[in-house]
């Protein structure tokens, strides 16, 4: 590899994707005319609480009607103060997240300052838009982005569509095949002043409902000990909630449902 030096008029600046293109590292889009079956990730959600924002996602990836992976991770730190979660074509989504993470760090190192949260959300939108030709061939990637905005002192959530449109959500959002059930659950239990603990509980219940109604969303796997990933982003940064804490929540929710004959029994639990 040579030292990447550019003429000032051709310099890619802090844009890592442009740099990769110039260096010939980014591959051209493959074509899916043959209907290749690829793994799909399913339900991810995000909701705000009093001190920040929660991001959560189930662990299942499907390939058609079969389960491709049981322990896939769909929630990632984008940088210190933001998180990104993915639903859709798994391989490409993970690659997009990897590129997004490097882009944020690259910008920070080249420019000496971090991008604003709005800037990060925009950057991700451009990546989704660049992915559009592949989305048209069936490799749809729909990310969910959230972070703590240090300049406004609040958590913020952004959603995307396959064409790269991005929209800021006021309180919560869920995407993926089980997104609708997850969204309804959060809607019923949401308050402005949720604490972190309450928000984690609501995220867990929403994923439970999504898995209960959607075959492509994985529920808590008590046999293998695989539970959804939940992360929290606050002024202190990105933290992944420990798995045993999540397992505990699921176990108490399951015990309650069992006692109620499988129904929520007048509460969200």
């Amino acid at each position, binding site marked *: *590899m040579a*030292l*990447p*030096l550019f003429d000032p008029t051709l310099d890619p600046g802090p844009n890592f994707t442009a740099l*990769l293109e110039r*260096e010939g*590292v980014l591959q051209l889009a493959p074509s899916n005319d043959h209907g290749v079956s690829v793994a799909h990730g399913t339900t991810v959600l995000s909701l705000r609480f009093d001190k920040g924002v929660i991001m959560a996602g189930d662990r299942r990836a499907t390939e058609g009607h079969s389960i491709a992976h049981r322990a896939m991770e769909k929630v990632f730190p984008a940088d210190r103060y933001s998180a990104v979660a993915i639903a859709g074509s798994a391989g490409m989504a993970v690659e997009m997240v*990897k590129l997004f993470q490097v882009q944020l760090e*690259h910008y920070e190192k080249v420019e000496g300052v971090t991008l604003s949260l709005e800037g990060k959300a925009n950057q991700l939108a451009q990546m989704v838009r660049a992915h559009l030709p592949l989305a048209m061939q069936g490799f749809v990637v729909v990310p969910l982005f959230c972070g703590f905005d240090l300049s406004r002192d609040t958590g913020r959530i952004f959603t995307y569509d396959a064409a790269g449109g991005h929209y800021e959500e006021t309180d919560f959002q869920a995407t993926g095949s089980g997104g609708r059930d997850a969204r309804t659950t959060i809607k019923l239990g949401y308050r402005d002043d949720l604490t972190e603990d309450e928000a984690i509980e609501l995220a867990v219940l929403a994923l439970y409902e999504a898995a209960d109604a959607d075959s492509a969303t994985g529920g808590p796997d008590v046999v293998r000990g695989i539970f959804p990933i939940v992360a929290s982003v606050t002024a202190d940064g990105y933290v992944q909630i420990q798995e045993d804490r999540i397992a505990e929540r699921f176990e108490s929710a399951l015990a309650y449902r069992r006692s109620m004959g499988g129904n929520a029994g007048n509460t969200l639990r």
Partner: protein
Amino acid sequence: MTMPYYVAPEQVMKDRAEYAQKGIARGRSLIACVYDTGILLVAENPSHTLHKISEIYDRIAFAGVGKYNEYDQLRVAGVRHADTKGFTYSREDVDARSLANLYAQYLGSVFTHEMKPLEVEILVAELGSGQRRTQLFHVAYEGTITDEEFFAVLGGDADPVREQFAASFQEGWNLSTALQAALQALSSPDSTLEASSLEVAILEQGSSRRAFRRLADDELSELLGA
């Protein structure tokens, strides 16, 4: 048509070297040294935004002295090289040695082929982990590369600074002692540098993936006061 005068190649090289040295000598010195849990980089720099010391990658830092626009261009190229390599292969495949070699080749070729040599001296520091050792690569304006195990001094009037710093250097000292010794060596005999005119950063062993961290003024005063 006029014929160009013949100038002996020795003379050309000598002139270029002198030119580069003069440019570098206008700036202040910079010290990098190993301490018990990391690498310390200290430079005299009145500016808080135009950095001499920066992060290249998870465990790699860059420091430059001389002409700002020239070493900053090299810094950005280093970040690009490291990020591209880490993205293409894996994060652990990014190392200081290959980057320092690239810098050396580039500086060497500019020195021999271009009208004007780069008036910079740079340092690539890598904090070791596991199999990989902690290393400091010092690259001079003409592409000479040296690797140091414990400390390096860059800049115009480096010799007296190096002598003084070498005399106080101890293997395995802590951050506070190392910083005080560096400050002593950078200060002139009759005046001591203020904490606010220093640019200090460290690569520290710890839980975080990115080992590079700048030390703010209050933390500096605390370390110097101790």
